[in-house]
């Protein structure tokens, strides 16, 4: 891979990036706030559309929240996940707290794994996130089943699998601005 200096003199780091060692270049600069909150807001809007009626539909909002929890744990964390979960609960007209619980638990998993996983590529990250999403969703569904006295079936497992399967795609799309700037693949740590 050929690294060349970019004529972006606004930030000193990119002009000097070719001087740094190979490992050091893998450290990403932080994503912009616009990108983070914009992507979360956009995914939330998308989640209001009726495509989620299909039971194994992936939870894109959870995917984006987890992605930012992992990559920007200073900005996006459990509280964001909790609030967005509540919004989804109201939209879905379900019990208040169901989505909030699942999102909070999954976000905790992502936040605690962040140091371990940031240098790995997207596929390994996805493999690590699979149990996190499964456990979080399972907890939410079991408690829901206990309170509501009925079991909604196992379709949510497919939903969790699909959600995690889309992780590499999220990685490509959400880190696109950084890749364009310095043309260094931050996933190849």
């Amino acid at each position, binding site marked *: 891979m050929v690294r060349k200096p970019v004529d972006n003199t606004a930030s000193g780091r990119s002009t000097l990036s070719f001087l740094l060692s190979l490992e050091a270049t893998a*450290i990403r600069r932080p994503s912009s706030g616009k990108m983070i909150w914009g992507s979360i807001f956009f995914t*939330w*809007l*998308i989640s*209001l*559309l*009726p495509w*989620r*009626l299909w*039971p194994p*539909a992936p939870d894109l909002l959870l995917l984006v929240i987890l992605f930012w929890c992992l990559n920007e744990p200073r900005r996006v*964390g*459990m*509280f964001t996940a*909790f609030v967005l*979960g*509540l*919004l989804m609960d*109201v*939209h*879905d*007209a*379900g*019990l*208040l*707290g*169901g989505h*909030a*619980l699942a999102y*909070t*638990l999954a976000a*905790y998993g992502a*936040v*605690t794994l962040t*140091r371990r996983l*940031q240098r790995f590529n997207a596929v390994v990250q996805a493999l690590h996130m699979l149990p996190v999403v499964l456990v979080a969703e399972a907890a939410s569904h079991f*408690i*829901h089943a206990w*309170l*509501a*006295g*009925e079991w*909604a*079936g196992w*379709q949510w497992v497919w939903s969790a699998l699909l959600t995690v399967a889309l992780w590499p795609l999220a990685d490509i799309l959400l880190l696109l601005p950084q890749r364009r700037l310095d043309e260094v693949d931050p996933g190849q740590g």
Partner: protein
Amino acid sequence: MQEHGTIRLFKRGPTAEFRLFVLVLLSLALLVVDSRWNVLNPARQAISVVIYPFQRFVLAPRDFVARFDNWTDAASLARTEKEALQRQRIELAQIATHAAQLSAENQQLRRLLKVAETVSQPSVAVEVLYEPPNAFSHHLIFNKGTTSGIRPGMPVIDEGGVVGQIVRVTPFTSEAALLTDEKVSIPVQVLRNGLRLIAFGGNVSGKVEVRYLTADADIRSGDTLITSGIGGYFPAGLLVAKVDHVERDAGSGFALAVASPLSHPERYRHFLVLKVDVSKQQSVGAGTDGSKTGR
């Protein structure tokens, strides 16, 4: 990552575990409270009002496409409708004369029986905003709420008959549980012989069940069920369902009738909410409504 060496120094706020504990506890509290009581409804309404503009915004393209579709089809639709209407007019003319005759006779009979004359019900037309993706219940969200005078408990009908019942309202939206939702129960009557029963949302999806019949109850497949008007929420005489089959269990001495709803909530987007007076039922209905809405 960059702050690897300075974790303690720059760490802000409580630890992740503490935050997790608080938020999980909060979620669980919300879940338990919301499944048992209605006290969280104001919070739900507030959030719902906040997200309502976004819901309308993202659904706008769909509504636009539907409107555009309607517009392009308008000419052919108008032609076919005109023919259908013409045919209907002829048929209706006959029925109308017949009905006039019957209504006169009926009024006379009612006077004779000293039955209170049924008043025509005020109603409000609503449109489906969206169907919530919820595996546990069959609900629909409509585009009008308390600002249009809709209250929990009001029945929802379409041209086929009873569709369901409003279970939750916010200022701009309302949520209806369909007949087939297992939390809904309706007092009904067999049209053929006036037998009074209660219909429940079925265990079989898309069906209505009449339970707790005595084994010799006079009900058979093909019977039409109409609302009996007992209980106050549903006005009498609305079509509800047609009986598919009756399962008689000689062992227990009880029978179970399975019926298909006559309304078609999955086909159209417009419905009518009957503005029955639910205020006096409120005290009675609050408990049952809670169990309905909570799940």
